């Protein structure tokens, strides 16, 4: 009897800890390096994950995947009427905002019972990167504009559960995606708590002739400028020769 009680106590203390320590999530992706050609409309990278061990009787796990791109700086400007003219009057800067931020979950986040976490909340993320600390009025507009160009995305059923322990996420990559390293973190949620976390990363690199032109314009402006002038002179001269009447 005493032994039985001891065992029960032992299990009661140990099991939740065991469960936390034991759950693991492993992630991988379809393309470690994504080459985006600028003249395509965009593509996607698929991330896969597996939870080990599979959920027991206490119900299925939920997954939240957060994908974060390289940091970028932005200005939001608001047009107002001043002196009778419409002009850019107010502006707010956002520094080191991820050039891509995607929140994907297997169910709508409100249903997961998670406490408010900034990493799952675009408004909190944006507010923390705002440089003018006292003017939150632009945050919603910033999120709307970033979402419009595909830089922010929230997909409430973006994580597909392939089985109780396996899942996949399709992360869109726009043709104007910022180049660099993208970090994807998967969070396993059970009973309103994050019980495991796994990461994977992939690199986005736009390629093609257009990219080469853009890179040259940034990396070597004198050569780019001279080349443009030479092209212009050649085109003008050739036109004169070809069409000479």
């Amino acid at each position, binding site marked *: 009897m005493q032994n039985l009680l001891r065992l029960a106590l032992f299990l009661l203390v140990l099991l939740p800890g065991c469960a936390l320590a034991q759950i693991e999530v492993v992630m991988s992706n379809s393309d470690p390096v994504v080459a985006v050609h600028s003249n395509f409309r965009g593509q996607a990278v698929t991330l896969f994950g597996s939870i080990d061990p599979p959920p027991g009787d206490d119900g299925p796990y939920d997954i939240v995947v957060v994908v974060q791109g390289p940091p970028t700086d932005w200005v*939001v400007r*608001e047009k107002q009427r001043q002196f009778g003219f419409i002009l*850019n009057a107010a502006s707010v*800067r956002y520094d080191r905002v991820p050039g891509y931020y995607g929140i994907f979950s297997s169910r709508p986040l409100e249903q997961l019972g998670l406490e408010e976490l900034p990493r799952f909340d675009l408004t909190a993320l944006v507010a923390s990167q705002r440089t003018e600390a006292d003017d939150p009025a*632009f945050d919603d507009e910033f999120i709307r504009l970033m979402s419009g160009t595909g830089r922010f995305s929230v997909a409430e059923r973006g994580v597909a559960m392939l089985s109780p322990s396996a899942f996949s996420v399709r992360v869109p990559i726009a043709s104007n995606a910022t180049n660099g390293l993208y970090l994807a973190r998967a969070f396993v949620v059970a009973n309103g708590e994050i019980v495991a976390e796994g990461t994977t990363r992939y690199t986005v690199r736009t390629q093609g002739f257009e990219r080469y*032109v853009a890179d040259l*314009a940034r990396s070597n402006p004198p050569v780019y*400028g001279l080349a443009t002038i030479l092209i*212009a002179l050649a085109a*003008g001269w050739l036109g004169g020769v070809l069409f000479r009447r």
Partner: protein
Amino acid sequence: MPIYLPIAELSVDLFFLLGIGAAIGFISGLFGVGGGFLLTPMLLFAGVPAPVAVASVTAQVVASSTSGALSYFRRGAMDIKMGGYLVLGGIFGSALGVWIFGILSSMGQLDLFLSLGYLLLLGSVGTLMFVESVRAVLKSKKQMTVVRRRQPGQAPWVQRLPLRTRFRKSQLYISIVPVILIGFAIGIIGALLGIGGGFVLVPALVYILRVPGKVVVGTSLLHLLAVMAVTCFLHALQTQSVDTLLAFCLMVGSVAGAQFGASAGQHLPGERLRVLLALLILAIAIRFGLGLLIAPSQLFTLSQLGFGEG
């Protein structure tokens, strides 16, 4: 067929670019105008970001003035010495213009400045051109020959300036100060608004300096070619917004269009067409004016800060 413009970061239809290039090339060949002052507004209306539109059109102006400048040079209808002084002033003007351009851009007031600048410039040029061409059409209807008044000498203040030198081709003995100043002013306007400025430069040379008609166009083309090349280079260095692909598509269209425009101009009633050109210029000016007065549906705009900005 969509084509991706790497600097503008925009997909545009290739035939749209070739088309507006050809249309504006045709107009410029028809009337002997540069076309930058029509092309930059068209690109702005098509949604090309203002810095890219202005900077890329400078490259297009280089292309469209090359063949003209070459043929005037071969015929000797070009005052190289005066062109040199104009270009000297123009280079400094262009540098100043590109510098101001960068400041306006980082302040977010570039669109406002371009709208105001084009409204003033095109509004005044369009009005003058309209009045003058309507008058010419009326005169020709009355079968009156247009009698050219003999032009008087330069304005007195031009003659009083120091550093006089002899411009043999133009048969002038004048100070280099107004020449450099005119080049300087056109250089600023060109770098800021993305125009060659030929339609301002030619009247300035004729009415202020009294440069004779036979060399004025060639000399002005020399200025456009050199100063726009320098402006293009400076824009590539400072604002990094020259889109070579965009400029190239426009060049191809306009170089071809200009040739057809020039030959069509010999068979069409020029004075009446000038009325149409004046109306077109006024319409663009009004479009800029409306943009300043009517609030757009989308009040908020987003721009990414590039390297070294802000």
